[in-house]
């Protein structure tokens, strides 16, 4: 029984171990990697991706998948920027209302996404993939391809103001991570995600309104994508159709690397936090140690495989698709 427990513990902490090993490795290769300033940089690049990855974590725990994040992030970013500028363009005015508006937009897109998936009975992979196209297309329609600059110093304080060496956006991301953890572990909805992921038909038979949980899950994911969008805009001060680019693969890779199973029911917010950090540490580390650009994709791929292999509870998996 004792050996069983250690294996459990090992599996539980494997992603964190992988992260620590990576940090030690890069620090050994290039001491400058191991500095507060660099950790702040990793934090900045991780923050928006973390929000998106947490959003999709809820969906993956339910055993579904959501590929609409790129479109959703773009739409939220663009609508936020439009509203923000239209209402005064500074947080000091009523333009702060654009912040909750963005979250609302995210929720609405998630709602549509969920309804298409549930009502039309289209598997989430396809429904959300198509919704991603629609989202990006809608953002393009809104902007006509233009970029919108957000110059407001108060909003940009997300990036420029630092507390204890880390910019505010890192703390915002952590705050929302805590909120996500809270939802996951202390609310009915959060626990229901696990129930649906563990056995949808059983959950339904137990009286759970599975479709409602599903739709709420997609809405919640949408809200987190919106937070990701706000941080992404805060990071570079630009909202555009391309704001959402590259979030899809990074987010899902991070979730898996963190040890959340794509077949649902296992994993959670902390796993995703670690996963996002692993991916961003690798990306940052590769540049820091001076790896040529053209091998970086390959090295990232190889390291991701190794990370997933190490953090997968192999005995609990009968087969993988």
């Amino acid at each position, binding site marked *: 029984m004792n050996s069983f427990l250690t294996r459990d513990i090992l599996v539980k902490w494997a992603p964190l171990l992988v992260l620590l090993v990576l940090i030690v490795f890069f620090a050994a290769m290039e001491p400058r990697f191991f500095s507060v300033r660099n950790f702040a940089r990793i934090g900045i690049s991780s923050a928006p991706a973390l929000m998106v990855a947490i959003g999709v974590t809820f969906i993956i725990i339910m055993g579904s998948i959501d590929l609409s994040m790129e479109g959703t992030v773009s739409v939220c970013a663009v609508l936020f920027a439009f509203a923000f500028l239209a209402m005064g363009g500074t947080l000091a005015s009523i333009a702060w209302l654009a912040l909750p508006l963005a979250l609302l937009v995210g929720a609405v897109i998630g709602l549509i996404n969920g309804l298409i998936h549930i009502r039309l009975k289209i*598997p989430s992979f396809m429904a959300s*993939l198509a919704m991603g196209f629609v989202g990006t297309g809608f953002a393009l329609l809104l902007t006509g391809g233009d970029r919108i600059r957000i110059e407001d110093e108060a909003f940009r304080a997300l990036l420029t103001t630092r507390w204890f060496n880390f910019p505010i956006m890192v703390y915002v991301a952590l705050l929302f991570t805590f909120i996500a953890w809270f939802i996951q572990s202390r609310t009915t909805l959060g626990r229901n995600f696990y129930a649906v992921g563990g056995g949808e*038909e059983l959950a339904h038979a137990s009286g759970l309104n599975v479709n409602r949980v599903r739709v709420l899950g997609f809405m919640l994911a949408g809200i987190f994508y919106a937070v990701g969008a706000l941080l992404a805009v805060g990071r570079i001060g630009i909202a555009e159709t391309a704001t959402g680019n590259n979030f899809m*693969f990074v987010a899902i890779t991070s979730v898996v690397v963190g040890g959340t199973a794509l077949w649902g029911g296992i994993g959670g917010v902390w796993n995703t936090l670690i996963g996002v950090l692993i991916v961003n540490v690798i990306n940052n580390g590769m540049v820091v140690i001076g790896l040529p650009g053209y091998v970086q994709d390959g090295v*990232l*791929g190889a390291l991701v*495989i190794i990370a997933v292999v190490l953090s997968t509870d192999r005995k609990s998996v009968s087969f993988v698709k």
Partner: protein
Amino acid sequence: MDFERIKPHLPWITLLALVALVGISDTNFLRPQNLISMAADIVPLFIMAMGMTFVIYIGGIDLSAQSMANMTTVIATVALASFGIGAALICIAIGAIMGAISGFVTTKLLVPSFVSTLAIGGVVFSIGQWLSGQRALYMDATLRDNAFGWMVGNTAGIPHEIFIGTVLVLAGWFLQTRTTFGRALKAIGAGEPAAAASGINVTRIKIMAFALSGGLAAIAGLLFAVKLSGGSPTIANGFLLPAIVAVLVGGTPLTGGVGGVINTMIGTLIVAVIRSSMLYFEIDATRQQMVFGIILIVAIAATIDRSKLRVVK
């Protein structure tokens, strides 16, 4: 109910409906020459989608296909000078080997194919960039025509790509329906534990499916390189999502065991028609992507046979 019997036929009914719709708005679209040319141009995408079909058929996904095709355009261009037509074999072999590695990582190392193929795709992309010196390369016209001229000519007004596509789809259909491999794929897709309990070497079959996907992605890249007479590590960008969409719209859902190469052929044509229809209906440039997404939702809603999906995840 009769509708039950119509269901398996929905993909091609959808295709015909779309063709008719566009045709009514502009009869130019229906000219045989146009339809043939449209079909010929979609062949590289179709070949990639067909490879992807085998992987989706067993419930996985291959996100490395595009990088594989990218790399192949580079390899084909580089290898043409020294190996002539042998370059084709090199390309296909490398594609199949890299695909098999994806399969190995998925089945033996238990990394979900969504991530494993993405990761191997990164590796392949790096190889392509390294081989190409990160620039576009051009084939020597004579060498190309000697070795691969047969791929891109015309016979009796029909582009040779159509023949290549037809041969491959027949081969794929034969493989799927008439061979032990195809049968094993179906068993794994529809009921993996039962297939394993029946003594089917599930791991090997799965690795072969990924290898097949890699090999076909390589053929897609090769054909594309020959068509464009050159290669670059980014030239096949934009293949991946349409290829996945083609498989899905054709009626091979990600749950496995349903659909097949014929479905994918129809799905690819649906994608081609939808794309052309943007022009025929003169959809505003900034709206095209959104319209594409909406049509996609409608098309998938129309084509998937839900009775074969046990749980809609």
